């Protein structure tokens, strides 16, 4: 074999070897192990029992799992229908050339993304407190009829979580929308304006179709991120699913099951179901995008 052919055969493997080794060791092998675990019940390496599909069967009739799914879906809906419109609205506002200090406002709205989730969780945990929390105390000062015991973190966990996530992520998603808005064809906009289209018609018939690929991507990212939600509610709700488990998400339930209860088999089953949900979401998005491109 000529040296050049040797190069061609081995060089890619050597260059990718560090990644491949790490991937095999820390991703593929644990994935395989978790698949095996999903069909087992274990307590330590010496006590293992093959239970077939028992973990998955229990999962299907586990009310706590379905409560976690419901909570996660509500949060995801909040992310898509509250957080993304807020992000788009901010992007539209900050894309106006006549707005002075645009760069400063962009920085201000983006800055929550620079702090960690745990920090945000702790901050909102304090802000949502009854009596002494900033929100209740402030509202009670402004409106004396406001109940200072309003239970943000008891009865209104999901709205509280959505509020916290809007504060955290709206500025981050705004950047995607800003980038997309800056690529909107100006000629089309001007043509629409000449044709007499108002702001809403221009937004609906020109801007929205132009930014749709980016919007689709942001929706997919939000769905995946929302289904993996863990740190924010975990800190906000003081390391629990909150009263009545009303803030329990799928990943929190997975964590509780695997690392607090020690039922690694059941936790693996939850993980694989969550993985399938995410693959399904990505597949649906890809399919929708393909359909759009093909017309």
């Amino acid at each position, binding site marked *: 074999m000529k040296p050049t052919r040797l190069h061609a055969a081995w060089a890619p493997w050597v260059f990718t070897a560090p990644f491949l080794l790490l991937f095999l060791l820390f991703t593929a092998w644990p994935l395989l192990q978790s698949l095996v675990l999903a069909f087992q019940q274990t307590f330590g390496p010496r006590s293992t029992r093959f239970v077939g599909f028992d973990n998955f069967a229990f999962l299907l009739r586990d009310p706590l799992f379905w409560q976690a799914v419901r909570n996660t879906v509500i949060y995801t809906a909040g992310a898509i229908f509250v957080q993304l419109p807020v992000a788009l609205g901010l992007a539209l506002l900050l894309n106006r050339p006549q707005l002075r200090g645009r760069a400063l406002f962009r920085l201000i709205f983006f800055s929550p993304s620079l702090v960690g989730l745990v920090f945000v969780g702790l901050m909102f945990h304090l802000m949502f407190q009854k009596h*002494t929390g900033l929100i209740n105390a402030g509202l009670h000062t402004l409106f004396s009829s406001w109940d200072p*015991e309003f239970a943000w973190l008891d009865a209104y966990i999901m709205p509280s979580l959505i509020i916290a996530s809007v504060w955290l992520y709206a500025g981050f998603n705004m950047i995607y929308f800003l980038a997309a808005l800056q690529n909107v064809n100006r000629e089309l906009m001007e043509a629409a304006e000449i044709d007499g289209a108002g702001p809403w018609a221009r937004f609906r018939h020109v801007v929205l179709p132009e930014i749709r690929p980016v919007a689709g991507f942001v929706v997919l990212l939000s769905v995946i991120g929302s289904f993996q939600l863990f740190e924010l509610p975990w800190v906000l709700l003081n*390391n629990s699913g909150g009263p009545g488990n009303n803030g329990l998400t799928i990943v929190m339930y997975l964590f509780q099951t695997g690392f607090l209860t020690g039922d690694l088999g059941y936790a693996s089953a939850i993980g694989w179901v969550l993985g399938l949900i995410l693959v399904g979401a990505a597949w649906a998005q890809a399919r929708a995008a393909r359909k759009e491109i093909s017309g």
Partner: protein
Amino acid sequence: MPRPFRLRRRPTPTSFLPTGAWIVVLVGVVSSAVFLSWPPTERPGREFWIFSNQRLTDYESAIADWNRDHPDARDQINITLLHLSALERRMMAAATADAPIADLVEGERDLVARVFAGPIEEVGFVDLTDRIAAENLLDQFNAPSLSPWISRGRIFGLPHDVHPCLLGYRSDIVEAAGIDVSQIETWDDFYRVLGPLIADLDGDGRPDRYLLNYWENQRDQTQALLLQAGSQFFDDAGHVTVDHALNARVLARLVTWVTGPNRFCVDAPEFTAGGDQMRLEGTVIASIMPDWLAGTWKNYIPGLAGKVKLMRLPAWEPGGRRTSVWGGTCLSITTTAPDPEKSWAFAKHLYFSPQVAEGLFRSTATISPVKAMWSRPFYHEPDPFFSGQKVGARYIREAPFVPERASSPFNTMVMDRLMVVLIDLKAHALEHQRFDPIALEPEARRLLAAAQADLEARVGRNVLYRPPPSP
């Protein structure tokens, strides 16, 4: 025809792979060699993990004494402070994946119980039962304080504490109102006698003062109240027994404490700035107070000094139990520890030390479970923070009466489920505007039956935990 002679170039490393690839290989080989030859940083001696920073100071002199008396490097004690969550992860990793763990570990009740989730022979702690019996130590401990560390009849830890509960209250406010707390025997008395203190102080139409720090999301307080009433969440065979008339009665009454016309509780969570502010402002009069919480208040809310006193917990029924229990720690020897006899000797040295007991009491107000310690003078000194009351003596008086607790690995799961029942019951009360405890009991019973079925299904899934045979 002979082949023509052709000059062949001598092969070089770059004939096989480009230079960049060789650099990758070199970096891989060198870093692997360095990693493999790096000496492990193992300290000689015995590792001892704790999760309370206060104990780090309290144990200092006892460990120094031990290390001085045991100069062999293998017997020296190295104490390490871990956050409780970190300790939890390490213990679970050791239990489930044979990860390295210390020779001696101080574990908190819920955490230790999880280690009992497998077969008894797989518990990662040394079985101390025979040692304790052989050395006649059983009677030296406050009996109920051993129960959380006994699994399937075997003892896996030495109790660190008793943690009896009293009621801490704002004596300045109560006494200024001319109220005599000695009239209080039951929770009904508590509401009747202290009720006049519930007041709208700022005229906004809402009370600004409540009698008790309790809310339906307070898991530990709820557990303490249920235990005080006599609830047991498991039978002797380890089966879940939450569907019980007593539990229904207690939960129904708790709901009326937090909602409805006779509400007298407020949510003033411990360990939060907001909760402490409410205590300082007198928004809440009384709190269920285990000994360690009395120490926490002394250390972290100095503004309450001289304004609070302790009284016995009001009973659920006349003549009923006047205390409960909240929290607990034990010291266990891990099965991977070499020479467990030495670790056992150290455990006794630490937990039977009067100096350690005094240090713990002075720093955290925690009383020792070793009964011989209870006559020590430091437990009988007046405490200016609690308006001159003899705090140690008051807790010691209740110690023998603290309820026994199960060591089941499903404790946390059961208690979490009971909290859901309590929240659902409150929702039911609000929806139907039903605030009479007796009227709420049937719904409580229905919710408890559902909880029982759910818990049985979950507990039944664990094919590795074999509860003790029925007696």
